[in-house]
Structure formats: C-alpha cells, structure tokens
C-alpha cells in the first residue's frame, strides 16, 4: 500500500511538474517579451496559453537525430541522467503543512546531494556529442556547477545552525515560531544563495554552458526532438526545485495570511523567485568564465563563510 501511495504521489508530482514546466516556459517568454517591448506568444489559445503545449508536441514529433560519430549509449543516457536527479529532489520538498513527500530529517542534505548529479548529465551530453562546442560547453558547465555548489551549500549552513535540523518542515516551523522569515536575519545568505543558484541553473548572466553567441548552444548543440526536450525539462524542473528550496529556507515555505491555503502561498513564492530569474535573463549581459569563477571563489564563498561565523556567534550569544 505504501509503495502504491509513493508511486501515485510521484505520478502526481510529475504531472504537476510537467504542467509547471510548460507554463514556466510560457511565463518566461511572456515576461521577457514584455520587457523587450514585444507581446511574446499570443496566437495559440487565450493569452498564448497553448503555445508551449504546441511546442512540446512539436518537439516530441521531431526526428530524433544522433550524430554518426557520437558515443550513442552515453548520448542517449545523458538527458535522462540530467532529468532524473532534478525530479528526485522533488521528493523532499514540503508544499504545505499537510502536503509533502518524504519528511526525512536530512531533507536539505538529500536535496543538495542529489541535485549535484545533474552535472554528470551535462558532462556526458557534451562529451558524447563529438562536437567541440558541446564539449567546451559541458566543461564550462561542470566547472561552474562544481564551483557554485560550494557557496550554495555554505549559504544554507547559517539556517541549519539556527534551526539545528536539516528537516524542511522543522525549518519552516522554526520561522513560524520566530515570527520572521529567514530572509531577514539571513539576508546575506539569501543573496549568496540566489546568485549561486543562478549559476547552478546556468541562467543568465551565468548561462555560459549554453552561451549561444559563443558556443552555438553549448552542451546540447547536437540534441534534437525529445532528447533536447529532456534537457529543457531538467533545467526547468531544477529551477522550480531550487525556487522551492529558496521558498522553504528563506521565505517561510507555506506560511502566509490564512485567507489563502498554505500550498498557494508556497507556489506564489516559488513564482516570485522564478520571476526574478526571468527578469535577470532579460536584463543582464553574460559574464566571462574567469570572472564567474573569481566571483564564486573570491566573493561568494568568503561572504557565505562570514555569514556562518556571524550566525554561529549570534547563536552562542543567544544561548
């Protein structure tokens, strides 16, 4: 019975996620469209709502091309390996006080550990394509993800020190007890988290692994049809997951005035975080690899460490 429930929960999350990704793509195009003084998709369905559905159908019906000299097994496996961890982390997100997946006491650790496997998919995709642009893109991607994993994790440590638990429900409950979301006392950590998450997600201004004007499309240059769609799906699923984690850690999860149910608050906060990313995509130019690395190692990591030290001192001082 438990297994059946787990399976049904996974299917439900997957369906919601597919819808979420579809509309996240639509929302991104709309938001960027408005910023760039153009309407964005508006032909299919009201407000263009059927546009990305049409895109998905088109992608799935496209010919599946595998380059003749590609390493076929790895080429085929790469998008799956990129998507699977991004989806797996959804298991520990808690959407409201009553809706959530596995309520494990190492939730945050699981999230960060599993999500970092995505980089393997990126590396495999770029390597197996037998395309130099793809290779360069994947190497950039891995370097970037490895570098930014550190500040991302370090930025969370402050919260863990305060709460004394890695359990997501505990973290939200602590914020409820405190009467304040962690974005206020952990503001520095929030900034570090947001910047590193942008780099983790390969989003602008850190979209180096796919940098169109330099590497054509980076690590997924050779991917077409549904395999390309898998990479896109992985990217957006991971984006939603990271936004979900930000909501839980810094924005009080499902907490909010009672006139809306907790899950709605949770989703609204996820949307708000994602909106910031879309906004940045439309606004900023792309950073250079060395600048990106320098920023990660020389600015974000020291800042995150400073936050940990200060938080620890305050924690001891408060008893």
């Amino acid at each position, binding site marked *: 019975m438990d297994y059946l429930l787990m399976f049904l929960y996974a299917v439900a999350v997957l369906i919601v996620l597919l819808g979420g990704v579809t509309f996240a793509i639509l929302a991104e195009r709309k938001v960027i469209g408005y910023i*760039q003084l153009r309407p964005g998709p508006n032909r299919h369905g009201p407000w263009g709502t059927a546009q990305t559905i049409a895109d998905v159908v088109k992608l799935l019906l496209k010919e599946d091309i595998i380059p003749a000299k590609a390493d076929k097994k790895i080429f085929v496996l790469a998008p799956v390996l990129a998507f699977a961890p991004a989806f797996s982390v959804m298991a520990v997100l808690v959407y409201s006080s009553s809706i959530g997946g596995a309520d494990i006491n190492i939730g945050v650790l699981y999230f960060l550990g599993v999500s970092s496997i995505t980089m393997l998919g990126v590396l495999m995709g770029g390597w197996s394509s037998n395309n130099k642009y793809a290779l360069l893109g994947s190497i950039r991607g891995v370097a970037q993800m490895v570098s930014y994993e550190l500040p991302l994790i370090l930025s969370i440590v402050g919260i863990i020190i305060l709460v004394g638990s890695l359990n997501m429900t505990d973290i939200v409950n602590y914020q409820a007890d405190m009467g304040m979301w962690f974005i206020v006392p952990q503001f520095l950590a929030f900034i570090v988290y947001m910047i590193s998450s942008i780099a983790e997600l390969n989003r602008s201004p850190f979209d180096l692994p796919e940098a169109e*004007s330099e590497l*054509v499309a980076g690590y997924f240059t050779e991917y077409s049809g549904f395999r390309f769609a898998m990479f896109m799906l992985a990217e957006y699923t991971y984006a939603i997951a990271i936004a979900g984690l930000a909501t839980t850690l810094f924005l009080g999860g499902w907490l909010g005035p009672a006139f809306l149910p907790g899950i709605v608050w949770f989703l609204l906060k996820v949307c708000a975080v994602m909106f910031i990313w879309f906004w940045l995509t439309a606004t*900023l*130019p792309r950073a*250079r690899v060395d600048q990106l690395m320098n920023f990660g190692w020389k600015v974000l990591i020291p800042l995150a460490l400073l936050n940990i030290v200060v938080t620890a001192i305050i924690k001891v001082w408060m008893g």
Partner: protein
Amino acid sequence: MAELKTETMTLNMGPQHPSTHGVFRLQLKVDGETIVEAVPIMGYLHRGSEKLAEGFLYSQFIPYTDRLDYLNAMTNNYIYCAAIEELLEWDIPERAEYLRVITMELNRIASHLVWWGTYLLDIGAMSPFLYAFRDRETILDRLNEISGARMTFNYHRIGGVKWDAPEGWIAKVQETVKELYENIQTFDTLVTGNEIFQARTIGVGRLSKEDVINWGLSGPIARGSGIDIDIRKTEPYSLYDRFDFDVVTEEEGDVYARYKVRIGEMFQSLKIIEQACDQIPDGDIITKKGKRIMMIKPPAGEVYKRAEASKGEIGVYAISNGKNKPYRIKLRRPSFVNVSILQALLVGESIQNLVAIFGSLDVVLGEVDA
C-alpha cells in the same frame, strides 16, 4: 609539480555561427578556451562587385554599392556617385546635397544601432537587440518614405538624388530625431554603466595608436584608440563643413572605448540631421545632365574619392576611358581592412573575448567579400 600536458584543438568558428555576423569563418587553434592561433577565412559571400562594374553603365552600378555594406547603403551610394561626379566635374544642386547628408546620417545611426544591438547580443544580452531594432525600424520608415526601399536604398544618383522628399518628410525626420535622442540616451543609461558589461569590455581587445595606423584601420575603431580622424571634418565632402559637430574620440583603445565612440557618434549624427533639416533650401534635386543616364560619359581620367562611412573610410577609385562604362572601379571597403587586425588581436584571448573583440570591429561581411 610537473606541468599538465595539454593539446590544442582546431575549432572552426563559422561560416555558420551565430556571432560571425554573416558568413565569416575563423579557423581557431585553441588550448582549452585560449586561442593559440586565429586564421580568418573570407570569400563565402564573394560576388566580384568590382569586376561587374566594368560591364555596366555608370549609373547601373549604384545598386551594387548598396549591397556592399548593406547596413549603410546610403553612404556607399553617395561615395560612388560623388567619385563619378568628380570625374564629370559636375556641380550638384544644394537641396540634393542636403538630402544626401540627411539620408547618410540617418543611415549611420541605423547602422550603429544594429551594431549596438548585435554587439550586446554577442555579449549575452538580448533585450538591447530588440530595443535597437525598434528604433532602426523608425529610421528605415523614414528612409523608405524617401527612397522606396528598406535596406538597399539606391537613392543617390550621379548628379543628385532620385526623388525629392515627400510632403512633410522633413518634419517627420525632425520628430524622429527627437525620439531617437531620448531612446539612445536610454540605451546609454541602460548599458554603458552596467558592471557586467564593463567587466566584459574594459581592457579587452586593446589597440594602440601604432596598431591602428600600421594596419590602416579607420572609423570608430581608430577613434577609439585616440586617433582624431573623421573624414567629415578632416577633408569635408558634400556639405559637412556647414555643420557644427564634434569628432568623438576615446583614448583607451579597448572594446569599451570603441563602444563609447559609437554611442557618441549617434548623438553627433542627430545633431547634424537637426541642422540639415533647419537649413535645407528648395530647388532642384538633380542636375539636368544627371537625368540622362545613358549619356553619362566622364572624360578619360582617374579619381579617388573617400567618405566617412559608419565603419570607417570608404573609398572609390574610378578610372574612366571616356566611354559610358567604367574602365575600372576599385573599392576601399572599411570592414575588409578593419577585419585584418583580427588575427593579431586574438592570439592569447579566450573564446568569450573573441566574440567581444570581433563584435567591436563592427564587420559587415557583404563589405569584406565584395
């Protein structure tokens, strides 16, 4: 510790690549992302324009000049016509010259806007690209109204211009100038101070004055390295000596300096258009002889005439043997000359800097591969 052994890899950037601004091919040898050697390979767009000229009547070659630097067709039109006019020793009606200046300067802004947009696209910002094209559209509307075309204008004629400005056109241009002034100001505010943009451009692709002179570079690239040469000022042609404008120069010689020069030049062009619109007199728009296309037969002789195009010095060297077709036309195309520095400039740079440097040269491949 023993040094890590690495191997170089050959990477073909182009001819089909999003940031080669046309069909340009760069054969790179890269060590990781560092460029060890860069060989530009041109000719994918070669059309033999200069040779074609020998088979046409003088005026029939004008449309071919549009297609060289297709982003700055008016100046190309002008310089070819002006060269032939000098062979013919014709005087051009004043109104025609004013219309020429207005159209050329509008076209210069349109060309710089395309550069601005695509350059930022190269650096990874997409919004400016769309903003720039919105304003370029406004300019193209004006040029469309006067010439009937949106890109290959073919408006200037030997002896004047093809048509007079339509009713109310000058007033419309004045409105456009006001609008552009505000919008370009916004662009400047939006991008020039952006920290990521500055980090990507300051100190990158530095060109010294000596480099510029030795490689024969011209236009905003030369002015970005502190060389105060603008043919509109140093050797005024058409009516440029009647207008009050400045030559924009920057000292640093890097990509950022070239960016600032082009932004500054757009404001100067607006200033020129404003003055030209105020001063333009009524009168003929083409000399009587100019209307008889078949009869254009310059006396035997040769001429070199040059002008300041949006990308640098554009020149036409024409030889006439007294017949109704040119004996020889040689074109000095600024992009062709400017792109030659690339191989020297790229060694030791990263692929990301390559895109920034190449973009800063503002190359149009139609002009490189004439």
